[in-house]
């Protein structure tokens, strides 16, 4: 019987059936960070349990680390949390890429970069954006702290029911200046913030096939924003080329890689396989997108205006954002620009933004930050001279971490200030108490930094070309 990509990966990982239709699923890679793991390790210790597979468990610090390179005093809450992960990793023999380590970075950036993320694997992390790794054809999803403890102790997860499948098929071509970020925002706008709940999404179609891995990761990353637990893209030659690159120390090499590639080529959804639900969308004619409200589905074309509120939740969002229906999005002044997060902090994102910024200046009164997704991305960018382009224009150039995406580490949007952000959630207070977030692509963020208001990047890009 023809099967979907998800069904193939699921079937390969069922350890045992559980009563009432549940399943016990084996986990191939467990990524751990400092914020959602300390209580899990404490639970292990309290029950005198061990980490079953330290060889499949990998840790880094990303959520609360400073990005300005300063030392973290041990007596601060953040310092204690970082120290707890160091102790736990040492005690349970788990590799840890610590603060300012050469391979440290946002967990969803370093997994793929180090070759930990491979097609066909099950990957979990105590973070909802674990869906990022689905870009490789892995089944990857976020879990809570007690489930982190469960995976540490058993290397499995319990599912009360098998997730349903949602086919998102994207045809057509993205136009010049329109990016994967705009596409995923448009998909979320269409499906809604709850439309993916209970589903694993597979992104298919010509428009997806043409995307490089960096863009595919941006797409799968935001699957969480429509409520889906995971998003996947079938592996192809683009995927294999990425995994086979020389600088993936934890990926298979040589004949082992060749064998695995053969299996990966058969992993994609079979002709004739059926999905539980289906959405079709075209990339043709898509405009750059910008969120106006307090959830990612409250999004419009950048060329349009704030819409009339359709319900009390949208009225509340417009009050919170301090915006009025009919105001053109591009007339909205901003105080802050954040280029970073697991959605858009890869080298390709920084190159795009730098191309537009090159030779220009950040507008007066705007604080603009570039926070690379990993220390390796930072080094690569510096080799290419991107840091100089940004700094010369007036951007701050940071070390890697989650930073202003969620404002845990002190990188905050100030109260009532407005931020054009390449992150993934414009929630109330997400980037700091009373912060106002507009989600955009790296190109739109860069263009907005230069003008001081939300700005369509396409005219500036044409001038750059």
């Amino acid at each position, binding site marked *: 019987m023809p099967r979907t990509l998800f069904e193939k990966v699921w079937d*390969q990982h069922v*350890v*045992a059936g559980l009563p*009432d*239709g*549940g399943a*016990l699923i*084996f986990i191939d*890679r467990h990524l751990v960070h400092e*914020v*959602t793991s*300390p*209580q899990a390790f*404490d*639970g292990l210790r*309290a*029950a005198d349990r061990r980490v*079953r597979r330290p*060889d*499949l468990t990998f840790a880094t610090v990303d*959520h*609360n680390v400073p990005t300005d390179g300063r030392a973290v005093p041990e007596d601060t*809450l953040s310092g204690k949390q970082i120290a707890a992960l160091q102790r736990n990793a040492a005690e349970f023999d788990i*590799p840890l890429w610590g603060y300012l380590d050469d391979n440290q970075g946002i967990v969803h950036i370093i997994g793929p970069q180090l070759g*930990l993320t*491979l097609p066909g694997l099950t990957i979990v992390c*105590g*973070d*909802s954006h674990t869906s990022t790794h689905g870009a490789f054809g892995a089944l990857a999803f*976020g*879990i*809570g*702290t*007690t*489930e982190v403890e*469960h995976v540490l*102790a*058993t290397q*499995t997860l*319990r599912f009360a*029911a098998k997730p349903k499948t949602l086919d998102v098929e994207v045809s057509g071509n993205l136009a010049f200046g329109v990016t994967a970020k705009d596409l995923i925002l448009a998909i979320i706008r269409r499906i809604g*913030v*709850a*439309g993916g*709940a*209970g589903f694993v999404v597979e992104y298919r179609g010509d428009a997806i096939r043409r995307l490089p891995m960096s863009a595919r990761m941006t797409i799968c990353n935001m699957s969480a924003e429509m*409520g889906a*637990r995971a998003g996947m893209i079938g592996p192809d030659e683009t995927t294999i080329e990425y995994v086979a690159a020389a600088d993936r*120390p*934890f990926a298979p090499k040589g004949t082992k890689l060749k064998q*695995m590639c053969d299996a990966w080529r058969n992993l994609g959804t079979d002709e004739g396989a059926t999905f539980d639900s289906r959405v079709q969308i075209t990339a043709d004619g898509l405009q750059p997108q910008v969120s106006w409200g307090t959830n990612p589905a409250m999004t419009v074309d950048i060329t349009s205006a704030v819409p009339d509120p359709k319900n009390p*939740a949208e009225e509340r969002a417009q009050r919170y954002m301090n915006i009025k229906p009919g105001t053109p999005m591009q007339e909205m002044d901003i105080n802050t620009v954040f280029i970073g997060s697991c959605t858009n902090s890869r080298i390709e994102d920084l190159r795009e933004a730098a191309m537009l910024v090159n030779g220009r200046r950040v507008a007066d009164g705007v604080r603009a930050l570039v926070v690379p997704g990993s220390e390796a991305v930072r080094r690569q960018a510096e080799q290419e001279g991107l840091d100089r382009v940004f700094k010369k224009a007036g951007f701050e150039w940071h070390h890697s971490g989650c930073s202003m995406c*969620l*404002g*845990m580490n002190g990188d905050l949007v100030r109260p009532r200030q407005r931020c054009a952000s390449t992150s993934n*959630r414009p*929630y*109330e*207070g997400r980037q700091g*108490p009373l912060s106002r977030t507009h989600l955009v692509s790296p190109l739109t963020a860069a263009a907005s930094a230069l003008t001081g208001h939300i700005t369509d990047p396409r005219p500036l890009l044409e001038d750059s070309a």
Partner: protein
Amino acid sequence: MAMEPFLTHSGRTAVLDQPNMDTDRIIPARFLSRVDRTGYGEQLFADVRGPDFPLDRPEAKGASVLVVGENFGCGSSREHAVWAIQQAGFRAVIAQKTERVTGFSDIFRQNATINGLLLVELPPGEHRKLADAGSGAEVSIDLPAQTVLLNGEVMRFDINAATKKALMEGLDLIGSTLQHEEKIAAYERQRGPWIPPRRK
């Protein structure tokens, strides 16, 4: 860790009838820097509290059943959201479910179940009665019978059978899974993944 079993619960409601309440609003990220599992109750909804906030109104004082809108707990996977709700005194959360939209987000649902917080989903008509009754209404929840009792009216709810059993028995899920030790070991021998090299 075993959780407290849930069979029946009677208490008063606090109504917070807004859709898509994300976990950042339930507990903001700056409160996640601690390494403990307790002490989060005070920080529940920290950034939206105030005299007009439903949970701060006198009629919501002492409430133990939280009535919310649809897709509650979306966004971040932080289990602190569930801990904060429980540590603020709530034993159950009741959301609205429609054909199109779920009552709770997937990860929040997992986190709640594993901590013994009962999640109830009701269709719009019945959910409306609870919301309209306002904070302070007396309700009785009977998990074995899958009912919520409000003002003499019995409302039935659906729940996944495995979830119901885990809640009623207060299962230690890690302990239950470790009963499958032989199958896990057999899986590892026969079908385990390619193991990356140890860090140099």
